[in-house]
């Protein structure tokens, strides 16, 4: 996600222009997108913040002297700073089990971000296929498939998530499954809508007239054109997944301790005394969730402006 | 064609008007030093392709340029001798819809979908004439009669979507005429309508004008409409006036190559040749205007002078001005 790949879809090879400077500058598609993206300052900040989070996740072991799953109950609820007894330094204090909060945050970033990305890959794939099939075939197939989407979207998402989470034994993969199993409906709707509108355009008709088969018509002509809304929705899905993982884990139905995730770090906050007396235990992981979701949403907003000016309000 | 002009009193004078738009991609000089007059009782047509600045001219007179991105940079607009640009917002509102009113190109979308037709007409009357709701609705019925809408008593209780495009444009005209304006600006009033409806609307405007002493400023790209309606013509190209004169001179003896091209591309009953003429090329990108004449790239007479230096607008005889090197002493043909 993030930086557009410069090699994709660039219709013109950039060569040093021999003609005069007055000639219209020919930019590659990627550099046009990047130029438009850069105009949105919040989107640039969002990209920086999100990259930092990924950096923390990747280099987690190098960023802390502690292990995420080794801790001493005697160290519980130490405030941020130096512990006068052991002399150990805890940047963000320790939690109810005596784990170092900063350590669990950087290792939790690995889990929370991978769960969100993996679930996003699943929902995007299912959504694209479902939406493409529904939109391309149309008629009663489309009608039935879309009524199913309507029905799923009518049931509050979180009820569905909780049920699935309650049925299966919680783990990392089950969390990915829970987030994916009903999360694809928005993407399916968008892809279907794009396909319906693109289907009517001339070049798809032309492709059909020249005898291209239906399925290949979808993939070669329709989907590249739908890439803008798909990318934007996928980005926003990542943000939604981070939030959903946090909420599930908060209730104890997502990632299970001792594996750290940003959501399960907040589970102890169900005890109001923790909230009252050891506020660092919830403030730091909470801030990382908010910051990351904010950053991803800003990226989505910037991509919307950059990829498809028509989608801009 | 209309009667020859006898009155010479000026109603509106636009003096060296410059309206620019400051967009993300750069500055667009939508109107770049435009001067003309609208005389009392006359119909002045402003002709040009889309992007020539004709609509921006009319919105500038109404002071309805969205700001930002638009801005009136220079020049003045005088209405009955008073500068409109110097007026406060409140003074300007008392003029809009009252002494100067406007009808737009898109009758389908120019009326508010959630209010009844009668309310939309009477709103103007209540605002400017200090009448109560009942009197205003009675007046609205009169106006609908005037613009030729049958069963006005029933129509005032209908919503815009219940009326056809032609009917909606008649309602727009009724709203515009509600306060007996001195100037009616009609921005492509018939473009969006069917041909038969177009003629009805034009006839209606002509009749209404004869009944009052108002002036009409007609914005159009359709020379057929110009021939039908106008006393004088202003031809605009790329934000500038390229030619201005009375309708006979323009049609019989066009001076500017662009006007010439426009007339040639006009379908006519007399010269039924096989193919319609079209001017080659496109309007220059307003973000990247050439240093010389803006029409030079499309002009069959263009010389190197035309490409290098912008011709100035000049009076070549009484009531006829043109912006072209051809009519200067620097022209070597």
């Amino acid at each position, binding site marked *: 996600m993030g930086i557009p790949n410069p090699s994709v879809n660039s219709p013109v090879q950039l060569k040093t222009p021999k003609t005069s400077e007055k000639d219209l500058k020919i930019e590659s598609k990627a550099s046009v997108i990047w130029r438009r993206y850069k105009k949105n300052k*919040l989107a640039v900040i969002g990209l920086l913040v999100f990259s930092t989070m990924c950096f923390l996740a990747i280099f987690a072991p190098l960023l802390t002297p502690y292990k995420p799953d080794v801790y001493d109950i005697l160290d519980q609820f130490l405030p941020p700073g130096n512990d006068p007894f052991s002399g150990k330094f805890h940047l963000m204090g320790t939690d109810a089990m005596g784990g170092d909060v900063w350590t669990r945050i950087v290792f939790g970033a690995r889990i929370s971000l991978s769960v969100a990305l993996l679930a996003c890959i699943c929902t995007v794939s299912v959504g694209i296929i479902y939406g493409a099939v529904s939109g391309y075939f149309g008629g009663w197939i489309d009608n039935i498939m879309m009524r199913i989407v309507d029905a799923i979207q009518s049931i509050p998402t979180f009820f569905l998530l909780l049920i699935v989470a309650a049925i299966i034994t919680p783990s990392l993969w089950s969390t990915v499954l829970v987030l994916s199993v009903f999360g694809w409906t928005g993407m399916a709707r968008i892809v279907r809508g794009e396909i319906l509108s693109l289907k009517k355009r001339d070049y798809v008709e032309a492709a059909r007239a020249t005898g291209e088969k239906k399925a290949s018509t979808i993939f070669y002509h329709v989907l590249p054109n739908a890439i803008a809304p798909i990318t934007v929705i996928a980005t926003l899905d990542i943000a939604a997944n981070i939030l959903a993982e946090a909420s599930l884990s908060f209730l104890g139905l997502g990632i299970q301790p001792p594996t750290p995730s940003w959501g399960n770090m907040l589970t102890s906050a169900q005890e*109001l005394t923790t909230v009252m007396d050891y506020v660092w235990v919830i403030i730091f992981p909470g801030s990382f969730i908010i910051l990351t979701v904010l950053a991803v949403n800003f990226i989505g907003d910037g991509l919307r402006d950059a990829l498809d000016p028509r989608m801009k309000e | 064609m209309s009667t020859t002009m006898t009155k010479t009193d000026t109603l509106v004078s636009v003096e060296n008007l410059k309206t620019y738009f400051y967009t993300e991609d750069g500055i667009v000089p939508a109107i770049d030093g435009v001067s003309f007059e609208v005389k009392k009782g006359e119909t002045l047509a402003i002709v040009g392709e889309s992007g020539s600045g004709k609509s921006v001219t009319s919105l500038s007179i109404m002071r309805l340029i969205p700001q930002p991105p638009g801005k009136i940079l220079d020049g003045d607009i005088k209405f009955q001798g008073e500068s409109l640009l110097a007026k406060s917002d409140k003074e300007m509102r008392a003029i809009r819809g009252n002494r100067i009113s406007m009808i737009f190109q898109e009758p389908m979308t*120019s009326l508010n979908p*959630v209010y009844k037709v009668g309310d939309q007409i009477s709103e103007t009357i209540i605002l400017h004439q200090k009448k109560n709701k009942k009197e205003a609705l009675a007046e609205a019925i009169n106006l609908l009669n005037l613009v030729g809408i049958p069963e006005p008593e029933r129509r005032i209780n209908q919503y815009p979507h219940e009326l056809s495009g032609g009917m909606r444009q008649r309602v727009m005209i009724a709203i515009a005429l509600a306060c007996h304006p001195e100037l009616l600006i009609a921005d492509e009033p018939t473009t969006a309508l069917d041909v038969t409806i177009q003629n009805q609307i034009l006839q209606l405007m002509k009749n209404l004008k004869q009944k009052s002493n108002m002036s009409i400023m007609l914005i159009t790209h359709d020379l057929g409409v110009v021939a039908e309606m106008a006393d004088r013509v202003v031809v605009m190209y790329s934000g500038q006036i390229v030619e201005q004169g009375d309708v006979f001179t323009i049609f019989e003896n066009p001076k500017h190559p662009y006007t010439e091209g426009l007339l040639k591309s006009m379908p006519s009953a007399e010269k039924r040749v096989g193919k319609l003429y079209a001017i080659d090329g496109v309007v220059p990108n307003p973000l990247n205007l050439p240093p010389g004449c803006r029409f030079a790239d499309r002009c069959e007479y263009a010389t190197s002078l035309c490409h290098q230096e912008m011709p100035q607008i000049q009076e070549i005889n009484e009531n006829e001005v043109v912006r072209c090197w051809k009519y200067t002493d620097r022209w070597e043909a």
Partner: protein
Amino acid sequence: MTKYIIRRVLQAIPLLFIISIISFLLMSLAPGDPTAMYENPEAGNEQDLSAIREQLGVDDPIYVQYYKWLKLLVLEGNMGYSFQDGQPVLEKILQRVPATLLLMATAIVISIIIAIPIGVFSAVKKYSIFDYFFTFTSFLGIAVPSFFIALIAILVFSLKLSWFPVSGLRENYDAFDLWDRIHHLALPSLTLAFGLIASKSRYMRSSMLEVIKQDYVRTARAKGLSEGKVIFKHALRNALIPIITILALQLPALFGGSLFIEQLFAWPGMGRLTVNAIFIRDYQVIMGTTMIAGVMVVFSNLIADICYAIVDPRIQVGKN
């Protein structure tokens, strides 16, 4: 108009049908004997159970099972019994619905009162410092998990400042005490409204921006109307129409948010019932609340469609 409403009602029926299928399928995935959920542990109804076993046809193919289950649901309103206390599920849920509705309705009203002026103001003063401020705030509002905002609200306003009670519906159980009720309702409903305000003000802003561009707004200006009249009479009424749909569309998210808010504020509504049911794996209750929530959403959409028709005169012709 009547035709339009009838058509909408007819469209809702297959939706309810599919919702019931989804609920049933999820239920059949749950571990354990499906008859267990009709078991009433308090009553010790051995004979009844075998009758239900017969009725359900455990050995029948799944579509026959579904048919029997649906018949029981539609004809008798029987959703089974709670595993926890043997109470009929439907009864148990219906006891909790008023508290949830009160909480959600209050949150919706608060969000409308706050979000619409913000949206209008941001659109009219586009790219002003206020617009940027509200844009950022609403992004923040969307990024904060609802349970986290609830925790912070409890920490700051209940625990530190002691302005509001920490939990519950009321303290005075002897009589109806309006002030007591409002005092308890304030914090959870404001917390629940927080996320709604964020998204609704964004929708309102873009709806208003869209309307401001319309030709009829230019017509209103050309009439000489004041900017206030142009915005509040001509633009606002049109901009509000799509917001009706947004209200209905936000409802599923609102249910989701209320799960956490009710849980954290110990608010005795459907959300808290569901979360508790999940903790003790009381599948019957979970399925019940899910179905009821889905049905409520479908009905709200129906109501929104009808409101739409009342507000927008163009609908009355019967065009889509």
